[in-house]
């Protein structure tokens, strides 16, 4: 008998004019995780945070510039104490949404040895970046980051580039299609 797998959609996150659906199973992962992060920052919260970022001090100014124009940020991150705590089918269903028109996968890194898989997608609105999605899956950790609005992934990556890792270009260059 065919097994019917149904993904029950519970959460819809607006990103770049599209509803990104987060499978219900993901939000239940918090109960299984030893560490979890669940952040939703809407436009009002981002505006409030922006007021507390000093525009003229170096570090705050970088953050303020980075999030200028961003409408929302969503983070779901789970760390488990043993592998295979999240559903691969849920993850594949989530990833599939970024094959929709307008989205481009700019980086995909897979390591069979470590069983790690990271994808970075951007949504373009003409020549501008209108959305960013990061999906990082490891055996004992799952992280989803969705950003609705203009966000330069290379500047975001540079934010914490002080750990002995050389500052590098962000993987393959993104070539925006010419109109």
């Amino acid at each position, binding site marked *: 008998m065919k097994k019917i797998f149904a993904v029950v959609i519970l959460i819809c996150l607006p990103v770049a004019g599209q509803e990104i659906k987060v499978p219900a199973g993901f939000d239940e992962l918090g109960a299984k995780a030893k560490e979890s*992060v669940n*952040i939703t*920052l809407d436009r009002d*919260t*981002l505006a*409030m*945070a922006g*007021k*507390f*970022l000093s525009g003229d001090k170096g570090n705050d100014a970088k*953050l303020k510039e*980075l*999030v200028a124009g961003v409408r929302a*940020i969503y*983070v779901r*991150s789970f760390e488990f104490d043993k592998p295979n705590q999240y559903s691969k089918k849920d993850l594949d269903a989530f990833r599939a949404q970024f094959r929709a028109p307008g989205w481009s996968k700019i*980086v995909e*890194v897979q*390591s069979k040895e470590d069983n*790690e898989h*990271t994808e*970075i997608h951007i949504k373009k609105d003409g020549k501008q970046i209108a959305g*960013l999605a*990061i999906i*990082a899956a490891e055996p004992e950790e799952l*992280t989803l*980051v969705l*950003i609705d609005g203009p966000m330069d*992934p290379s500047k*975001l*990556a*540079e*934010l*914490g*580039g002080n*750990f002995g*890792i050389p500052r*590098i270009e*962000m*993987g393959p260059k993104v070539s925006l299609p010419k109109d």
Partner: protein
Amino acid sequence: MSPLEDALREALARREPPAGFDQRLMSRIASEGDRSRPHNRHTRRWALAAAVLLAGLGLQQAHRQREIHRGEVAKQRLVTALEIASSKLQHAQKRVLEIADR
């Protein structure tokens, strides 16, 4: 000192408690003073006077404090979100470099 120790010293620098900390403390001392010490009118008068004076100043800050609290919560959540995103991007960058080097 190693870079880690320098970074720890900076990260663990002392920070002031939320504004109004001393006012709230003095108010508690004024209200709890009689329970734990022998009755001392002189001490109580001064404690109450200090508490009233400080509390008067504190009232003006109460509304502002709430706004600051909300703003700091929002900023902290933003920083945490960007921290996670940045670390994942860096991890991917590192992997790309490792593969390219092979």
